[in-house]
């Protein structure tokens, strides 16, 4: 590693546009922005979390970083090298250095390959000659699986085992960056802990940088150094995890954190209720895009797009960032709380 810490990843003003329609000659050609101008960077050995509702652009952003999704504007710089304009051939060597764990643990494994072949597939793709058996053994033991599973097909694995095979595949080539899309979704709490501990251990031992996408906020609080909250393809708040959890400044962040179900039946629920309807990406609201659901929205929030303001070490896309623990005004235009 060079003397000065270089960023492993820098993303600037990234946009991903999807063209849709017309279908069967019906409808007009439209464009929607799945990711609408986001920027962040990542130091080696650090973990960055992306949170937000489904459809907010988390996975699209991750796929764009990994070169699986073409971008329409912006820059992606990996270890000092611009990668967003590389073709597949020139991208291939970089794939040695970054890997992805996909959302569906079983679905992301080829059903016709055995575990032993799956974990070493990357070596074959990149034409790297290693002792496959020894490498399989090393990777499986790293993720806490025994050699018994090498002859099994994905459908013969439990969810937790399939997830570990996914981790083994992701770390096979000693990457410097792992992008983990919902690495614990659908896993039981005890196994969820095992997978996260495993990733964390690798992060510490190998200096891995990680991007974790999840909607489990409790997980984010424990594992992420920094986080960004996405809404309709934009970051509404980005900064150190501790700061965001202790005093969310964007109303959407505050609502998201307050909605987190707590495993404590006696705890008083102090929820910030939001109207359930998320606007369509085809009809983005004018001005601040959250104002249609925001309990704090003021008359003129729909007039102009808010500039990001600095709160502590965070960037917050709101003209009126919240004070610590601020509650919505009584006459807020949201659904009345149920009960």
């Amino acid at each position: 590693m060079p003397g000065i810490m270089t960023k492993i990843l820098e993303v600037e003003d990234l946009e991903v546009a999807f063209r849709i329609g017309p279908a069967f000659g019906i409808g007009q050609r439209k464009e929607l922005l799945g990711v609408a101008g986001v920027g962040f960077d990542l130091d080696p050995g650090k973990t960055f979390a992306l949170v937000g509702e489904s459809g907010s652009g988390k996975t699209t952003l991750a796929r764009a970083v990994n070169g699986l999704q073409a971008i329409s504007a912006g820059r992606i710089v990996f270890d000092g090298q611009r990668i967003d304009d590389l073709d597949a051939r020139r991208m291939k060597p970089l794939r040695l250095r970054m890997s992805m764990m996909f959302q569906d643990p079983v679905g992301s494994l080829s059903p016709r390959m055995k575990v032993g072949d799956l974990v070493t597939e990357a070596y074959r793709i990149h034409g790297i000659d290693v002792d496959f058996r020894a490498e399989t053994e090393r990777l499986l033991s790293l993720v806490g699986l025994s050699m018994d599973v090498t002859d099994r097909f994905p459908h013969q694995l439990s969810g937790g085992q399939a997830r570990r095979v996914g981790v083994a595949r992701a770390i096979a080539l000693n990457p410097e960056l792992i992008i983990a899309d919902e690495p614990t979704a659908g896993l039981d709490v005890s196994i969820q802990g095992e997978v996260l501990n495993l990733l964390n251990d690798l992060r510490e031992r190998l200096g891995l940088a990680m991007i974790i996408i999840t909607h489990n906020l409790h997980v984010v609080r424990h594992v992420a150094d920094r986080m960004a909250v996405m809404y309709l393809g934009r970051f509404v708040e980005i900064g150190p995890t501790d700061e965001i959890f202790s005093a969310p400044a964007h109303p959407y962040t505050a609502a998201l954190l307050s909605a987190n179900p707590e495993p404590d039946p006696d705890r008083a629920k102090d929820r910030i209720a939001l109207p359930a309807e998320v606007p369509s990406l085809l009809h983005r609201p004018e001005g601040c895009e959250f104002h249609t659901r925001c309990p704090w929205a003021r008359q003129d929030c729909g007039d102009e797009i808010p500039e990001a303001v600095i709160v502590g070490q965070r960037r917050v896309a709101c003209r009126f960032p919240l004070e610590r623990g601020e509650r919505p005004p009584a006459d807020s235009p949201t659904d009345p709380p149920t009960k």
Partner: protein
Amino acid sequence: MSLPTVNLLTIRDLNVRFATERGELHALRDVGLDIGKERIVGIVGESGCGKSTLINAILGLLANNGRIDGGRILFNGRDLTRLDPKSMQALRGIEIATVFQDPMGALNPVISVGRQMRNIQYRSSLRNKEKDARSVAMLQRVRIPDAKQALHRFPHEFSGGMKQRIAIAMALMMEPALLIADEPTTALDATLEVATIDLLKDLQAGIGCSVLFISHHLGVIAELCDEVVVMYAGEVVERGSTSQVFNHPNHPYTARLLECDPARQAKRTRLLPTIPGEIPDLRHRPPGCIFASRCADHRSACQAPPPEIEVDNGHFARCIHARHHDENSRSRRP
């Protein structure tokens, strides 16, 4: 807490076995639980603990290689294990309705929502117009905006949260006595998850049905359920009111499970707790305590089947270490 006097569903000593290529699998062993009228009961447990098998046994939908090997499932006094397939079919969807994790699995993608909602009222003698009016009313109850318009739309035109609400509306259409909800919020985000839970609570109170709610999300169970049943490897290891079980877990598995939830870790930690070991092979069930191989507290006495001990009014734990609450507070075990 007042306990229900009338039970809608009572399960006793239920055993389910599956014939597999590698021998017989004892999926449920001596499962017992009660669901009171108008109560919301949660089942929590990790994958493979038998939650889905239990639901399928209740619904009479066990796979062909599965069979009920003893035990009773009493629903409104009738033993469902002895019911013929035809009567069982008449019960499903009318008296017992279900909602599953994936709403798309419950909705037909090529038929409009209105047509589907009309179809599920096929047993009713109402005219189509009246059926549609009922559909609109139900969609409004699950807070679908423009409910009348929604009848003409197709499932893919709704967001994930709305699709799940439509699936709930369809399940509750016939005002069932029991709603079985199998991980209905797992695919939803935190804000939608909470909204769906609140909605379920409202509808349950409005209709006056009982709910059997299956989840591995402890937070959701704590929010929604009056009572909770903890399952491990096909056995009920602990059951009681939600506050009894969450505040005074008496089975070591329950205690470990609660510890493992990152939400219960007040202090930020990189190293999350786990439960070492694996679920035993259910083809070769140990005769004694099912959790013994992973339990830090296991003794030689755990080789024998543990009794279900009532540790408090309505709070049971299947563990030899379980103690009545009063004793427990006097001498906490090491």
